[in-house]
């Protein structure tokens, strides 16, 4: 899932200082699961904003709505009838959701309430770890299911580097060395051959905005732009 962190309160407060009526929009998918931007987080943030603005003698009227997914038009539609009543929208969705919302209401100031952080996994409630940088050419098949792009601090394709330190990465004893783990797992699976070969340079595909059109879904509209 996409993992996000709530932005610092002062930053959010500053975004909204000139607005009297703001809609806080949560997202019910990734950011809700990672406890950053779901219904509950919307309520907490609104309570904070309400109190802070009262203390400033600058009260604010806050609306709250959490939709299934802000990255999906089908669900965003639910906001159409509401957004007009507000001066601004504060979105707690991931960066993609926020942009899709802003794109739908181009006249309306839209602000991020979270810092979108990574694609990761749920280690435990409230504890998430990054696993993928969406590089567009997955090498997990070579590397025993451990991503060198994300988990190696240098994103090496032919690791480990000379800094690998008794199983830890050179950057910290608490950070496992991805290449140490890759070696160990491949070795147990008798697949060391995979990394005895030199992995050639990457054709980086994440250096410009990417579009995916799944096979069978081409239309004159979506393929004309490409």
């Amino acid at each position: 899932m996409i993992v996000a962190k709530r932005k610092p309160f002062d930053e959010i407060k500053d975004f909204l200082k000139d607005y009297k009526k703001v809609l806080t929009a949560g997202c019910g998918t990734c950011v809700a699961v990672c406890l950053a931007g779901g219904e509950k987080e919307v309520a907490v943030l609104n309570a904070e904003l309400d109190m802070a603005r009262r203390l400033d003698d600058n009260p604010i009227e806050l609306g709250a709505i959490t939709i299934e997914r802000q990255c999906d038009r089908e669900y965003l539609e639910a906001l159409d009838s509401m957004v007009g009543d507000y001066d601004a929208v504060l979105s707690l969705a991931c960066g993609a959701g926020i942009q899709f919302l802003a794109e739908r209401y181009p006249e309306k100031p839209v602000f991020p309430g979270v810092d979108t952080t990574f694609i990761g996994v749920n280690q435990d409630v409230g504890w998430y770890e990054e696993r993928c940088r969406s590089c567009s050419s997955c090498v997990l098949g070579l590397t025993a299911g451990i991503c060198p792009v994300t988990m190696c601090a240098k994103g090496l394709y032919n690791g480990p580097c000379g800094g690998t330190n008794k199983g830890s990465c050179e950057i910290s004893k608490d950070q496992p060395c991805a290449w140490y783990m890759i070696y160990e797992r491949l070795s147990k699976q008798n697949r060391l051959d995979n990394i005895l070969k030199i992995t050639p340079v990457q054709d980086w595909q994440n250096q410009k905005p990417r579009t995916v059109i799944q096979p069978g879904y081409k239309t004159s509209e979506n393929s004309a732009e490409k």
Partner: protein
Amino acid sequence: MRLDYPSNIKIIRVPCTGKVDVMHLLRAIQKGADGVYAVGCLEGACHYNEGNLRARERVNHVRRLLEEIGIEGDRVRMYNLSSGEGPTFAAYAREMAENIKALGPNPLKQH
């Protein structure tokens, strides 16, 4: 047993402090309470494993949230005691009341 604790405290019963949510605590302050505190079982003695530990984390979180917006975090506290410790309960209640008296009324009331 009649316990002598301040009469201006409103008690809300929950099955486990693990059920106490950030929003419950925050809303109490938002609605004008001068302070709010959770009383849970002793740490390590939670019937539901670690409900009281989670509650402490949440209390700490709410304290930070309040500080962020300019309200004293110490208006929110967590206490632990074992069941049947009536006098300790009363003592904590008095301590909390003293604490709030020192902090003064909820600043939101003047706004």
